């Protein structure tokens, strides 16, 4: 009984944070929803209906924690086909049927469905979807509405459209194209500028605000009509009353045709794959590292899709980009999804007329950018690093998706992968003989010391075909335990499995366990053995012979300050990953590491990322860690600004000191054990902090993390950082000694 009470209490305590992140998410969901619906040739409002129904129903019935649901970009391609073949009302019927199928998948516990697809094939399919979105919207973004019957034709005509822009005579079109290009630039450069006030409003909303501001500027100040051609403005955003009055009636007339069911199957397949991948990726981002109940979530998505289809919306899927934003803004539970839906309703109710001031090219620029992220050249480059055969699988899937359709595309991808596996092993028998064998053994090793670590041994082969068997065993292990996965009896391990194991490794590391893969050393020398194995969990050693100027300066600095300097990239970041700051972030590697043996101080460049899949943003930064001899309280200090004041409202208490007004005003200090922190922050320490420039400082008890900004430091900044860290360490040591 009391735990229940505690839950409610925690829920209300965390509610402000969730309201905040739900609000930020709704800012992206609004333009994206409109855009995705229009890209699928549905009325723009359908996207909003999808997000609202999805947000409300999935947050109530779902089994995941911090995911956001709404219209997905993966579905644009399928919906386009469905709407073209069945008409809008027929497509709604298909959406409803696919909702029923999703519900069934949930009941049949098919949450593992996504595990059966090789990851390169999925990448290829996503890239093809990206190209479909990009190809179609690119022309509208440049003010050139064209209609072609295949997505390839759209892509091939992109150069013509670009050249065509310079021949525009119509001023309306020029403005339209200009708006598109500016919006695209905002999307591209937004993530590069790391300013927290700018980042408070997501890029798509900046575009919307800019567009609406622009149109009001012309209307109210210049008293002129909007210069953008009227054909390139959003039309058909009804008021909320009209939406309810005009709920479309789905038409099930085509239910006996193959075309209908192929659409339904494609919708279900893509919706479930996109959702399952996103749920998995978001689970990795969740700071509390909770496990989602995937099948429950599938059921909820099914129910939401049925509801959305009935109300004139599209398929509801779990979306990664919006979910990443949700996590980054501090969401803790499903209520943020609900709130994002609520805000969308409010936006439509209050601002539906303002929304018609958004030019189409601006919205399409957002989509072009999402499409580009899905099909970006870095994806292909990564494939090349893993292995050429992965590129082949990727391209085979991509091209067959583009030229035939999605279902054939993914099927061809799966087949290609399988054939390649057989060719690589020069044996079909390995697969056919062993596919039904229970090839995974797990047991707990009883050591004398009483440690219970899990030992998992895999036999024969392990690829996307039978990974679910291994996964089933691995999912049984609590993530704070030690696991050894042994492949020494296994003749072949594919890229999909290695990628998934890498995810497990990270998950275990974050939850305090240890996940080790052994027995692959032999495979490299084994000529019959494949690819990727060593490359997928790499410590890249690509160091060019010639040093960059920064590297030379760093070497000099190391000499001057008598530090040990290691230029190589490495992955020993387990200790660092435990800092709060990295809770929602994924560390890639550390390089340019300086070690000061006298002060036990490390200075290094670090590469980490926020978000996942196509919403991933890489960040490089320079940081310092100091190992402390004694335990001190855990806390975080940062510059206090408008944002932190807002966080304070949202329930995170800033610890203020009565006799240090200046410090309390300018610095934002949080930590769990307030009493210990108060005792720890002596006058000397506070004066020191006050009189120096702002650094982000975090303590996790035995270690301090200090950095200046979320970017690499220049040599000068680096010296300042080093100096600051040393002085801070000095004062902290003195404080510790005095207090003991």
């Amino acid at each position, binding site marked *: 009984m009391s735990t229940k009470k505690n839950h409610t209490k925690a829920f209300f305590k965390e509610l402000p944070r969730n309201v905040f992140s739900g609000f930020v998410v709704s800012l992206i969901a609004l333009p994206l929803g409109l855009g995705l619906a229009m890209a699928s040739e549905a009325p723009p409002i359908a996207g909003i209906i999808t997000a609202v129904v999805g947000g409300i129903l999935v947050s109530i019935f779902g089994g995941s924690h911090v995911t956001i649901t709404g219209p997905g970009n993966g579905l644009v391609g399928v919906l386009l086909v469905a709407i073209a073949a069945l008409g809008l009302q027929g497509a709604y019927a298909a959406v409803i049927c696919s909702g029923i199928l999703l519900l069934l998948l949930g009941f049949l516990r098919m949450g593992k469905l996504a595990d059966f697809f090789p990851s390169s094939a999925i990448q290829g399919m996503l890239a093809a979807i990206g190209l479909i979105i990009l190809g179609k919207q690119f022309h509208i973004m440049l003010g050139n509405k064209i209609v072609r019957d295949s997505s390839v034709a759209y892509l091939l005509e992109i150069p013509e459209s670009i050249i065509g822009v310079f021949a525009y005579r119509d001023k309306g079109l020029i403005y339209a194209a200009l708006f598109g290009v500016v919006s695209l630039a905002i999307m591209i450069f937004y993530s590069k500028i790391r300013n927290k006030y700018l980042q408070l409003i997501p890029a798509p909303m900046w575009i919307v605000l800019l567009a609406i501001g622009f149109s009001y500027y012309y209307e109210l100040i210049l008293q002129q009509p909007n210069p953008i051609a009227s054909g390139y403005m959003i039309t058909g955003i009804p008021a909320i009353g009209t939406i309810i009055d005009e709920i479309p009636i789905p038409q099930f007339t085509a239910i006996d045709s193959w075309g209908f069911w192929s659409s339904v199957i494609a919708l279900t397949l893509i919706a479930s794959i996109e959702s399952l991948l996103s749920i998995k990726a978001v689970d990795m981002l969740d700071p509390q590292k909770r496990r989602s109940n995937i099948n429950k979530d599938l059921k909820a998505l099914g129910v939401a899709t049925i509801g959305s289809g009935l109300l004139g919306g599209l398929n509801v899927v779990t979306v990664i980009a919006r979910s990443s934003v949700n996590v980054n803004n501090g969401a803790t539970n499903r209520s943020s999804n609900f709130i994002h839906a609520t805000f969308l309703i409010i936006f439509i109710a209050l601002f539906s007329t303002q929304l018609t001031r958004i030019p189409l090219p601006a919205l399409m620029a957002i989509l072009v950018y999402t499409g580009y992220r899905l099909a970006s050249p870095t994806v292909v480059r990564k494939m090349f690093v893993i292995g050429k055969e992965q590129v082949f699988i990727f391209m085979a899937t991509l091209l067959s998706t583009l030229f035939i359709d999605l279902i054939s595309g993914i099927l061809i991808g799966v087949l290609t992968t399988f054939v390649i596996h057989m060719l690589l092993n020069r044996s079909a028998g390995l697969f056919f003989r062993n596919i039904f064998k*229970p*090839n995974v053994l797990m*047991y707990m090793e009883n050591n004398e010391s009483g440690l219970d670590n899990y030992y998992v041994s895999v036999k024969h082969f392990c690829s996307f075909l039978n990974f679910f068997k291994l996964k089933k065993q691995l999912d049984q292990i609590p993530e704070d335990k030690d696991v050894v996965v042994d492949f020494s009896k296994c003749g072949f391990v594919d890229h999909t499995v290695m990628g998934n194991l890498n995810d497990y490794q990270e998950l275990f590391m974050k939850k305090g366990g240890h996940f080790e893969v052994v027995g692959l050393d032999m495979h490299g020398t084994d000529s019959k053995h494949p690819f990727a194995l060593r490359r997928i969990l790499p410590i890249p050693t690509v160091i060019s012979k010639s040093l960059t100027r920064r590297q030379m300066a760093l070497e000099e600095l190391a000499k001057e300050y008598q530090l040990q300097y290691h230029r190589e990239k490495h992955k020993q970041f387990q200790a660092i990953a435990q800092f709060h700051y990295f809770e929602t972030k994924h560390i890639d590697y550390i390089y340019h590491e300086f070690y000061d043996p006298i002060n036990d101080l490390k200075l290094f460049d670090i590469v980490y990322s926020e978000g996942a899949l196509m919403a991933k943003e890489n960040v490089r930064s320079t940081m310092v860690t100091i190992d402390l001899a004694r335990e001190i309280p855990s806390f975080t200090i940062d510059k206090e600004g408008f944002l932190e004041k807002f966080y304070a409202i949202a329930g995170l208490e800033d610890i203020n000191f009565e006799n240090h007004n200046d410090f309390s005003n300018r610095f934002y200090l949080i930590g769990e054990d307030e009493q210990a922190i108060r005792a720890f922050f002596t006058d000397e320490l506070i004066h020191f902090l006050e009189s120096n420039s702002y650094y982000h400082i975090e303590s996790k008890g035995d270690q301090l993390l200090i950095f200046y900004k979320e970017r690499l430091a220049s040599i000068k900044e680096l010296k300042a950082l080093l100096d600051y860290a040393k002085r801070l360490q000095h004062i902290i040591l003195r404080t510790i000694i005095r207090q003991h």
Partner: protein
Amino acid sequence: MNVANSPHFRPFKVIGIGATFSPNLTANLSEAARLSLFFDAKLVVIHVGEASPDKRQQFEAILSPFVAQGLCFECIFMPGKPVAVILHTTEALKIDLLIIGALQRENVLNYYLGSIARKVSRSVKCHILLLIKPSIKRVACNHIVVNGLENPKTEQSIHIACYVGAQLGASKMTIVEEIRHQEIHVNVKDDTSLRRATIVREKLRRREDSRVQNIVNAIPKTMKSQMSINTQSIFGKRGYSIGHYAEMARADLLVMNAHSKTRFWDRLFPHDIEHILTELPTDVLILQ
């Protein structure tokens, strides 16, 4: 039980081996003769085919060094269908343990049974020992893995395994209990259910452990004094994964119950022993 507890416990009195003139003949016969000496049993060499002084001489030549150590053996020559002949002879001569040599797959460290051996091992009524790499010189048997399934036969299996271990001078024995997925009854879908499943599993593990421990305690000390006996619970496919475990633990001998059809799930069991027969991880002793 009483007989088993007596110091003169001798489960294998007559040991049989089918002999054909293959490159493995010497190795197979040497292994069989050595085991007969260890178990103090009589060896019966069964040859499917007409008797001839030539063949008899060859057998005798191979076995002569063992005869010098006190081996007592007998050669049976009988023409007919191999499977039928072997089955018939085993019953007629009351053979307790039939030794069958396995074949090695080309180039791969994988062993399997020939078609005759497989048919014999399925229908024979006595204990069977499948040898994967018979050798002329003795290779010591150090580690024995025994199944500890919840089955009426398990008690006898563990007992015989101890006997074998004692006779062969093994230093280590591991009794493996298999914890079945279905028994956990909890579907792991999120953190809460995972925690619950972990608790249930731990409980099962303890239960299995104490069950096996009871069996071990009943075995006379003289039989187990020289061996360290451990228990190990594994999660995997019943019957199959124990072979996998034996392979991983580098066991020298795996002792298994043969299937009995007394209970419902036992009917599923032959399934699993088939798996072991297709990829013999180590020498396997199947006890009836």
